[in-house]
């Protein structure tokens, strides 16, 4: 037969499969299609540039799986966990594990929701692929920490921790927000804002750090996951362009979503900034530089210049995120140190090389505003602990402890009156998101009320039981049993032996 080219063939396989129903109302099949005010005229002309078919998908993905699980198998068999340069890295990996992995799972359910409810075949098969990919990511990450959990603390009840711990309400509320949105908003939220604007910064620097500290397994997790993200980014870009070009009435709606989800994504990445700047003892890049490279250069200076012709301006408060880049990781690490006695991943005493690196990378801010705080822990790791349970931001759920980047000695906390209550927000970015949909954000579940009301029992032990871990699994790394375990594993393997050469 005459060989069809890739584009024609892809269209033949993925298009015209749906039809206008004759015996039911199409609005019953797609009840949400008009809910958000988006107008679609001729979506047929759009296309997912990756043109991945079922056969290509399973072939490429099984090769990726094969490569990744071979690395995993070797790492596990050789006790790679004992061979990394410093075990505090695992505390960062734990943070990643219990924060990012449930997010992947939520994204899996979310992509199914989007694919089911947006009847645009041009992007639909890409959403179906992504729904399966996200399950892949969740499972690769689980396999990674299933092994860790056999040797280290903190992960053995991850689902309980995910459901009940204050820290996990941060990523959970982010994806819950998208899951409860309309399908087009969810598409912009995840495929565009999350995947295109921010996942680079999640997987590229972190995988590089993993390789630098010798965690081959985690480097492979990062790289293998990221290798699917190009497809997800392509979906996000195609969807964004389609919505903007289909109808002018979509533009202000899309702008509103970009405003909201840029800041929402930026804030959910707060802990990632500490995984870039603090947890690895050998860093690949600083948060500040990664932000400049991936967000400022590639997105604000690249993409948003292109979107100008549609009347789209850079997302609201993007200047704030640029200002905050000198503060973000330090202020976030400070928050983690306040509550490290009640978290499944530990803080740690900064070491001399950490002070050197942080001062060098952040000459304008670190020594002046943050180093004194971290030095307080030199004698006593609990010196900076919070006396109680913090008020958290009603949108992003992070404790309201960010400094105003213009005046770093002052708090950035915002107070808003709604429905007979004063609501607290961590920043002007989150405040504006709250004000746009207060009826949504007043529904957030915040464990402080439950903890303080004694719902989970009257003692601290009861509360930890509810979190899914014990007080011994929290606190500071270098004084923890995990650190001593790691030393023992290394001794057993003879890793710290010095061999004289004469």
């Amino acid at each position: 037969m005459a060989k069809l080219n890739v584009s024609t063939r892809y269209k033949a396989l993925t298009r015209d499969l749906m039809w206008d129903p004759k015996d039911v109302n199409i609005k019953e099949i797609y009840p949400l299609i008009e809910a958000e005010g988006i107008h679609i005229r001729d979506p047929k002309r759009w296309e997912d540039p990756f043109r991945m078919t079922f056969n290509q998908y399973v072939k490429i993905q099984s090769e990726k799986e094969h490569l990744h699980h071979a690395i995993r198998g070797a790492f596990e068999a050789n006790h790679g966990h004992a061979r990394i340069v410093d075990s505090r890295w695992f505390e960062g990996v734990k943070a990643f594990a219990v924060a990012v992995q449930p997010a992947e799972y939520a994204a899996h359910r979310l992509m199914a929701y989007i694919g089911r409810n947006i009847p645009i075949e041009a992007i639909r098969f890409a959403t179906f692929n992504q729904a399966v990919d996200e399950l892949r990511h969740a499972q690769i990450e689980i396999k990674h920490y299933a092994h860790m959990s056999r040797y280290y603390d903190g992960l053995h009840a991850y689902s309980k921790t995910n459901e009940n711990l204050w820290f996990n309400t941060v990523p959970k509320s982010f994806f819950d927000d998208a899951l409860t949105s309309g399908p087009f908003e969810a598409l912009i939220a995840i495929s565009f804002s999350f995947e295109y604007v921010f996942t680079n910064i999640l997987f590229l620097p972190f995988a590089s750090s993993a390789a630098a500290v010798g965690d081959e397994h985690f480097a492979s997790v990062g790289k293998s996951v990221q290798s699917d993200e190009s497809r997800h980014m392509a979906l996000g870009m195609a969807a964004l362009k389609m919505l903007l070009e289909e109808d002018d009435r979509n533009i202000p709606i899309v702008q509103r979503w970009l405003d909201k989800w840029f800041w929402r994504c930026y804030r959910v990445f707060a802990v990632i900034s500490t995984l870039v700047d603090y947890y690895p003892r050998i860093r690949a890049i600083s948060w500040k530089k990664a932000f400049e490279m991936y967000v400022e250069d590639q997105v604000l200076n690249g993409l948003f210049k292109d979107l100008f012709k549609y009347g789209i301006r850079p997302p609201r408060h993007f200047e704030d995120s640029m200002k905050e880049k000198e503060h973000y990781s330090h202020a976030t690490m400070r928050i983690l140190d306040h509550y490290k006695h009640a978290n499944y991943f530990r803080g740690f005493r900064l070491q001399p090389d950490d002070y050197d690196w942080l001062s060098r990378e952040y000459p304008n801010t670190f020594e002046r505003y943050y180093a004194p705080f971290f030095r307080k822990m030199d004698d006593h790791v609990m010196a900076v602990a919070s006396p109680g349970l913090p008020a958290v931001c009603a949108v992003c759920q992070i404790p309201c402890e960010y400094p105003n980047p213009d005046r770093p000695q002052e708090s950035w906390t915002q107070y808003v009156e709604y429905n007979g209550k004063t609501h607290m927000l961590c920043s002007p970015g989150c405040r504006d998101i709250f004000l746009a949909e207060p009826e949504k954000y007043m529904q957030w579940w915040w464990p402080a009320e439950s903890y303080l009301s004694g719902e989970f029992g009257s003692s601290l032990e009861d509360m930890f039981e509810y979190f899914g871990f014990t007080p011994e699994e929290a606190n500071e790394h270098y004084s923890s049993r995990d650190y001593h375990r790691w030393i023992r594993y290394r001794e057993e393997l003879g890793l710290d032996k010095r061999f004289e050469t004469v």
Partner: protein
Amino acid sequence: MLVWVRVPSDDRFLSHQGVPAHPDMKAQELLDKATQMWGLPEGKTYQLVRLHATGQQPVHLDKTLQENGLRDGDPIDLLG
């Protein structure tokens, strides 16, 4: 009822911390609870200020929380 008390002078840069409270309790009682919780030095004079979207409002220590118009979930600054 729960109120959120912050000590802006604390150099740990902490946010408001939850304090279980009761509408009928005197503000002085809340102040004592909060100073104890935050580990502030005894024998000094402190005051409470309620924070609003529109500004600040002093809390009268001899009145109850209800008389002060304090509501569940209100943020308060403890100044000293």
